[in-house]
């Protein structure tokens, strides 16, 4: 049984990866845009490192965590949109007629996201190292960083899949993008939380799980091994993934029952 299931997952993951690779915009944009923003922010906000209490003297190192989250957001949108297209074109309906288990579709889709997440992480990390960022946590930290980034991609990807399965509309999935961006901007993305002056903004950033995802990645780059930041980052990433996968599974059951 498990071999059959693994085969189904592998087939669908392969399909997901091939479909992504065949649309260069789905690869280039998630890779290039976050790096472009990194360049803009790092150049424009470098003076902020002169603030008393700023944790590093390199804004590139400070901001390098952001592309990992933005990359995950783009992957979410692409994965969700692809799944919505499967629904709109009737692929899911045809799949429901085969012995393939529904959950294999979800797992396969997430397999594609894992592949994309690894590629993105390697590129962002490579660019960071190339422009002179030194990982305070060393090579083992790089490995942990990639694992965390992939976990975040899976969590966000499952949220995209949930939106696609719930609405069956690519446009609805795309409209989630600004919502995710709000979470990103209202976080400790550009300034450490203790240096955010405006009280309500600091409170929102503290309540925003995205702050902890960014801070965990950032800690590996500029601090070293910060157990608290890592525990919070992995904890939130895991919680988002579990909740999102559960929601997507329920939506998939409903969607297949409707077909």
């Amino acid at each position, binding site marked *: 049984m498990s071999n059959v299931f693994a085969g189904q997952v592998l087939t669908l993951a392969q399909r997901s990866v091939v479909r992504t690779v065949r649309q260069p915009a789905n690869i280039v944009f998630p890779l290039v845009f976050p790096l472009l923003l990194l360049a*803009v922010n790092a*150049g424009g*906000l470098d003076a902020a490192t002169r603030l008393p209490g700023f944790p590093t003297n390199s804004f590139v190192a400070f901001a390098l965590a952001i592309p990992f989250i933005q990359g995950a957001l783009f992957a979410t949108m692409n994965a969700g949109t692809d799944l919505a297209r499967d629904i709109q074109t009737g692929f899911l309906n045809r799949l429901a007629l085969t012995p393939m288990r529904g959950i294999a579709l979800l797992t396969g889709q997430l397999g594609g996201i894992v592949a994309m997440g690894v590629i993105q992480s390697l590129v962002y990390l490579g660019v960071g190292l190339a422009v002179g960022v030194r990982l305070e946590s060393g090579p083992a930290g790089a490995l942990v960083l990639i694992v965390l980034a992939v976990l975040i991609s899976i969590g966000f990807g499952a949220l995209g899949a949930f939106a696609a399965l719930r609405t069956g509309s690519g446009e609805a999935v795309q409209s989630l993008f600004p919502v995710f961006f709000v979470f990103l901007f209202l976080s400790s993305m550009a300034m450490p939380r203790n240096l955010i002056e*405006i009280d309500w903004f600091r409170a929102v950033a503290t309540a925003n799980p995205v702050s902890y995802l960014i801070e965990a990645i950032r800690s590996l780059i500029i601090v070293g091994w910060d157990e608290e930041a890592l525990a919070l980052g992995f904890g939130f990433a895991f919680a988002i993934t579990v909740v999102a996968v559960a929601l997507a599974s329920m939506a998939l059951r409903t969607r297949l029952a409707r077909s």
Partner: protein
Amino acid sequence: MRALAVARGVAWRTLHNVFTNPSLLIPSLVFPLFFFVAFAGGLSQVDNVPGFDFPLGYTAFQFVFVLLQSAAFGGVFTGFGIARDFETGFARRLLLAAPNRTGIVLGYGGAALVRWLVTAAVLTIVALLVGMTVGGDGIDLLGLYTLALLVNIAAVLWAAGVAMRLRTMQAGPVMQMPVFLVLFFAPVYVPLSLLQGWIHGLATVNPLTRVLEAGRGFLAGSPTEVGVAFAVALGLAALFSLWALRGLRSAEAAG
């Protein structure tokens, strides 16, 4: 006269579409507010950076950038509408029916202008409500909003030129990305004097830097580089007028 009649019709239809469709209206209203909140709120500490010398504080410093950004993206969003009109076939019917086709470009431009004025009004009210201080008098503020208006016109003409050449919604990134780059390669977060390295070099030669600095000068009540800023804004508007009109000819030739 015929061009004006066409322009009025196109502008009315475009505005009707925008103001009766929340999915088109809300993003153009909400995004500038959101950027304003994220930049002015999250980065307010930046005004404590040694050498940060804008007298009105960080909220006012960011307001000018977000105002110009809303003007530029208001133009780009209208460009998306033009591309959609070509995809649905409406623009081709319009080309057949319009007695003066230059009026089509004028109409889209007019619609972008009205659309941005609404966004600018909302943004200004919110900025004042959150305590933004204004140092300039009425004439200074007129200068600021006129500069932003010229940016809006230049952006819509740029986007219209792209939309009329490519005639597909897939042209969205081509319209958006250069505008994004020009905006963000200006001194967005700190004054030009605090930028260092490659970004300082880019910001120095970026024409929008003059517009942004002049806008901040108007708001602070100490106008600076006014002549250069207006020359740049008018120059961009004139250049992209030619670009848009050539785009119109390209669309006509494509049939």
